[in-house]
């Protein structure tokens, strides 16, 4: 079964940094990463999160007034054979 990765996507870097610091304070795991091109044209930062933390993250976003675009789910795409045909 294909593994999925969850990302919080932002309108700008500032909101990404704000949420990252809030989650860190609350002990919720998050990793800053470039926004996957597949989920947004906006070349900002995203936060890689765990699926089970989504409700807590949504609560934090709401309480702290942090602007996010959405939480996206995409297939983990580290495939050494991608685009190789022989």
């Amino acid at each position, binding site marked *: 079964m294909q593994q999925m990765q969850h990302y919080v996507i932002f309108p*700008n870097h500032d909101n990404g*940094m704000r949420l*990252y*610091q809030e989650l860190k304070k609350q002990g919720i795991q998050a990793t800053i990463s470039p926004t996957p091109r597949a989920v947004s044209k906006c070349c900002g930062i995203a936060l890689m999160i765990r699926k089970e933390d989504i409700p807590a993250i949504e609560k934090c976003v709401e309480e702290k007034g942090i602007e996010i675009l959405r939480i996206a789910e995409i297939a983990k795409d580290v495939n050494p054979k991608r685009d190789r045909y022989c």
Partner: protein
Amino acid sequence: MDGQIYFDNGSTSWPKAPGVAEAVCRLLEEGAFNINRGNYTGAYEVAGKVLSTREKLARMFQVEDSRHVIFTSGVTCSLNYFINGFLKPGDHVLVTGLEHNAVMRPLHRMTKQGVAYDVIPVDRQGNLKAEQAESLIRPATKAMIVSHASNVCGTVVPIRDLGEVCRRHDLFFAVDSAQTAGTFPIDMPGTGIDLLAFAGHKGLLGPQGIGGFVISDRLSREMEPCILGGTGSQSDSYEMPEQLPDKYESGTMDLPGIIGLHAALSYLEQTGIDSLREKKMELTGYFLEQIREFRDIRIVGRPDLKNRTAVVSLDFQTMDNAVAAFELEQRAGIMTRVGLHCAPLAHRSLHTFPEGTVRFAFSASNTRDEIDRCIQVMKELFQ
């Protein structure tokens, strides 16, 4: 700087706060990565420091949301943003008789595009005749732009009263805190300020080249960005983002400046601006007390400590002011600033145009011994 005495803190503070130089060096040597662009851990660490700097400034000016803190090169740039990005042909604004050219030059240019202004007068000591403000308001009046304290004579303007006038008449209120940020507490929402322009390198004790403005929610919906370009966000669009701070922060930021300012703000938080102000005012009082003994030196502005900053302007009656400043430096390494201080309107209001004044601006790093030395040289020159 042995044998030299720095009394030009109205231009820029020196020495800077402990830790500022080290913080700037550390950034440059250990990784001056570009935030909002670089997608790697080093850049995210710098971004975290920038966010922390915004939060410190928001706390200092009592603003809840630090996204409203915008970095620019300083007060001049910030006031240009307001004057060029907010005012439109047909608008009328009020300014005070103490304004710097950071207000008067962009405003003068806007008069050629149909913006008009009136000046709220001051008396000879630089005290604002605030009671006259309301009578100058017209139907087209959109805003009031006010220097919190004069960079020439140090007189402090009653911004709370003026903020109240703005509130009553639904005017936008822009305040230039070049001479007061880091010295006086400023409650931006409590005073009804819509744009607070600040310099990072004067009372805030950071490096030159960094400053900014704090903007109210309602003004951020009205004020257009004057500089447009890349923000590292919403890069697929030719439109500027509406989000703060991106709306007003195009191009690569002055990260060494911001990191230096971060160190300076940490110092101010530890030390407390009240204790620094007390020290500066104690020195100012000591200086004024002795200057009053000179018959041929005129104190321009208030002769006492009421409603003033640590900026003192003197007019030497028996010597050209430029020659007096030159002699002070030649004889004792005393650094002052002579001339019109980029504020011809203020000098006209204070009746010191065009001869100007010699300005002494003290910091908490100055000492009574330095003032004693200065007075001794003045005695040699003028008594």
